[in-house]
């Protein structure tokens, strides 16, 4: 007791404990290994080892057509797949010089923001759960579930959405989307308020996060951090604001910033970003160009198979005036809706279903976009496009050699630089802080390892 701390150490030299945290650890959101050197409970050294979920995303993309890469992008940041979808699509569109329709841009913004909220919800919820606040987790997951319901209504799936298409989307928003979305946003806000009550002013929670996992502005920039983690340090950088894409420049939102770059700041940044995202989505809903959505078709509506049969028998008279009733999976591809969201580029966008079923031009166009070796063939060149993913700047770099397969697809995942700098946020803190710090970064192995 009387010994000085330094003397204690000399007198009772103990070996530091080398401990693996991950790859298969309850708090590892994906698979990653943090090799920690513990002095007591204190982490003196942490080294991050990634690659446990490496599945050759980029090479897989390069082995299929441009469209076939879209399902792969779902599995990058699988918590916010829509943003990945759109990021990739916009990159290819940039490569091809396609301009999407106004409505398409708005829909993309809405869906991106919903996805972002899902992502932040998951991140905060998981962090809270790992701190033992299971109830918060479930409340937030409940909110995410509401949003996913919305996503399902639009895309036909909850996670593996495959919604983006080069030059558009796989379908327009369904009817009644706006009303439902607003209702769900209201419910999400309720949950956020509850979570706020449970956590934000709770000292146990605040103490766990405050002053923990600090990264300085300079370090964050030097490591190439982006997204909430960078903003928590007070650096004002958001792709949506600083290199506006889609229609973000027409929408009003704030970029929440932190000051110290600790876990608490990241929590606050995420919580406020959710609110901002909901705001953006609501504004976009407000401004969404309506167009021919509710056009009353004079012609009668016929079943898809009837149209196919008629066209096959050459009885095409009047087919262009009829509305085709599609398989429910294809809702939103009816001609009236499709025109609103699909870019007018027949070399990239599948024709509307009525054209595929009902006239030879559409059918041939459809075929040529699907057949191996034809498909979408952007001109030779390269394009990089970055969107604001939930975790930061998500960039797609696509190189085309003029064929129907990308020559190179490279992803700049926001998590990758974060992982490079993670050790800075872990070292010097306690073993128990590994989990909240790691959680606050929201590492997604899918996009990290690709």
């Amino acid at each position: 007791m009387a010994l000085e701390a330094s003397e204690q150490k000399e007198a009772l030299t103990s070996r530091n404990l080398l401990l693996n945290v991950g790859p298969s650890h309850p708090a590892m959101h994906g698979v990653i290994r943090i090799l920690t050197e513990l002095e007591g409970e204190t982490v003196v050294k942490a080294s991050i080892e990634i690659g446990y979920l490496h599945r050759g995303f980029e090479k897989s993309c390069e082995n299929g057509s441009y469209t076939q890469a879209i399902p792969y992008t779902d599995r990058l940041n699988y918590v916010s797949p829509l943003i990945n979808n759109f990021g990739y699509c916009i990159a290819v569109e940039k490569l091809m010089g396609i301009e999407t329709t106004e409505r398409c841009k708005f829909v993309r913004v809405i869906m991106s923001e919903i996805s972002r909220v899902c992502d932040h919800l998951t991140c905060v919820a998981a962090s809270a759960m790992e701190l033992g606040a299971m109830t918060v987790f479930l409340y937030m997951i409940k909110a995410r579930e509401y949003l996913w319901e919305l996503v399902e209504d639009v895309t036909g799936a909850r996670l593996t959405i495959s919604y983006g298409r080069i030059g558009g989307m796989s379908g327009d928003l369904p009817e009644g989307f706006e009303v439902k979305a607003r209702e769900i946003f209201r419910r999400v806000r309720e949950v956020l308020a509850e979570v706020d009550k449970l956590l934000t002013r709770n000292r146990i929670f605040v103490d766990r996060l405050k002053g923990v996992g600090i990264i300085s502005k300079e370090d964050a920039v030097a490591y190439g951090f982006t997204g909430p983690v960078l903003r928590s340090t007070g650096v004002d950088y958001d792709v949506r604001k600083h290199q506006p894409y889609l229609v973000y420049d027409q929408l009003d939102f704030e970029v929440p910033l932190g000051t110290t770059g600790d876990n608490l700041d990241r929590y606050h940044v995420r919580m406020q970003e959710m609110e901002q995202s909901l705001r953006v989505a609501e504004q976009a809903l407000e401004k969404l160009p309506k167009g021919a959505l509710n056009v009353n078709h004079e012609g009668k509506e016929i079943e898809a198979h009837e149209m196919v049969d008629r066209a096959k028998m050459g009885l095409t008279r009047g087919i262009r005036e009829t509305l085709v009733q599609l398989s429910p999976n294809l809702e939103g591809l009816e001609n009236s809706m499709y025109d609103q969201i699909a870019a007018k580029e027949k070399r990239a966008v599948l024709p509307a279903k009525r054209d595929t079923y009902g006239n030879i031009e559409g059918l041939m166009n459809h075929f040529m976009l699907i057949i191996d070796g034809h498909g979408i063939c952007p001109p030779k060149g390269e394009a990089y496009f970055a969107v604001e993913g939930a975790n930061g700047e998500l960039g797609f770099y696509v190189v085309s050699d003029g064929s129907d397969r990308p020559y190179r697809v490279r992803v700049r995942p926001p998590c990758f630089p974060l992982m490079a700098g993670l050790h800075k946020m872990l070292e010097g803190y306690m073993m128990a802080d590994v989990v909240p710090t790691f959680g606050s970064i929201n590492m997604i192995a899918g996009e990290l390892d690709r």
Partner: protein
Amino acid sequence: MPTLTINQKSITVPDGTTIIQAAEKLDIEIPRYCYHPGLSIAGSCRMCLVEVEKIPKFQPACNTRVSEGMVVHTNTEKVKEAVSGVLEFLLINHPLDCPVCDQAGECYLQEYYMKFGLYDSRMDENKIKRHKAEIIGPHVILDTERCILCSRCVRFVNEVSHSHEIGIFNRGSQSEIRLLPGKILDNNYSGNVVDICPVGALTDRDFRFQCRVWYLSETKSICPGCSRGCNISIHSNRQRPHHAGGRRVMRLKPRFNAEVNHWWICDEGRYGYKFIDDPSRISLARVKEKGEFLVLTLDQVIGRAGEKLREALEKVGRDSVVVVASPRLTNEDLFVIRKFFGEDLGLSQIDFRVPDQNLASGDDFLLRADRNPNSRGAEAVLLDENGFDLTQLLSMENSRKLQLLCLFEQDLTKTLGEAWAKKFLQQFEYVIYVGSNENETSVLSHLTLPSATYAETEGTFTNFEGRVQKINQAVEPLGDSLPTWQIVSKLACALGYRYNYENAEEVFGELAERVVEFQDLAYEKIGDSGVEIPDISKVQV
């Protein structure tokens, strides 16, 4: 030699060149349906319309001859509009058949729609129904709905095959291709109409629904059907093995070679690929024991063959071994046979000439009576020194018992007739058969080694004119089979010789050094269209 400008690019071309040909030289694509370089000009599809300065009307590029100072535009808005307009006309009565059409994927309607069309359809009338899926000959099926009346096929039967089986009947939008009364499209070149048909009107019955064309990969090769050596592309399906019952080689297409076959190929050659994936393929090596074949590994069987060979050489002598090579083998195969049997083992009884009892006949266009692809090459490689003539041996009533016969790709029962062949084979104590497919001779052999077919190997053939042309590997050798030169090399190794050729190119390199006819040739120089070797007779002097 007029100089003209097409889309701001200048080029000087010989007199009489048409715009379309000049544009081709400049890599400017002008869409066309009726134009085919091997046929007369019809100028009826109107797809190749171009703008020529100082001429008010659109000119069809296929029929307009260039003149000095001509300025042609193929990509102005007006031209694009005209071309897409023509395409629209072509498609208004085109059925929605892409899903069931074999042409989809190599259809010029699709291709040009994507390149030059891309308009929104205005057609809202009923389409004209016509005859569908009519079998018009042993190889060809006709769908008149899909026909765009480019008349290529009609011109082909009139101008190339001179068989005059089909024509265009009726007038206006009722026009359609029909067989002439009392005729069917049955000539030895009928398959070519499928190739030249730019759409899916004429499709191949043999290929029908077997595989989608976009799954196919192309390999440049030479038709082994006769000594003409027509240039072909082997279309094989390597991506989706579940199609066509696992058949790998799906079809053959002629490949342009101005010196040999132009754009054409005869049906006999075109459909002569079936043996490659035939159930009769010998895929495993085997040895006959007590009258039953026993399948062993290739190395075991080659070891056994080596033993037998050594036994024959050591116990009885060189005169007891006869090697019958085949003019179906590549130059490389033949060279390795010559090198091993002739030079290393010092055998003199090597030949490839087996008199054919039922000699086929050729025609005056492409098909040659000699159905072997490499007779000329075999002569050059095998016949240059020893005076052995197999026919003598065959005709001789042999009193001495011969020890070993090594047969390469020779179905003696077929060429000699069953009785004669059996009699001949019985003279030998042991018969080794190296071949790709089962036949009556292989069944009679004591030891069988599986060799790869021409689609599974690479090498060279020498055609009857002395043109050395290259074949390339399209698919992997089936089962344990190997190219013949590899089998012989392995056999040589089994007897203690060092044969370590990496590939056919190495064999050819040595062949070019050693065989006078091939001197100065290099494998990579052969290229896609082959090289004619100087007259062999002259070289021999």
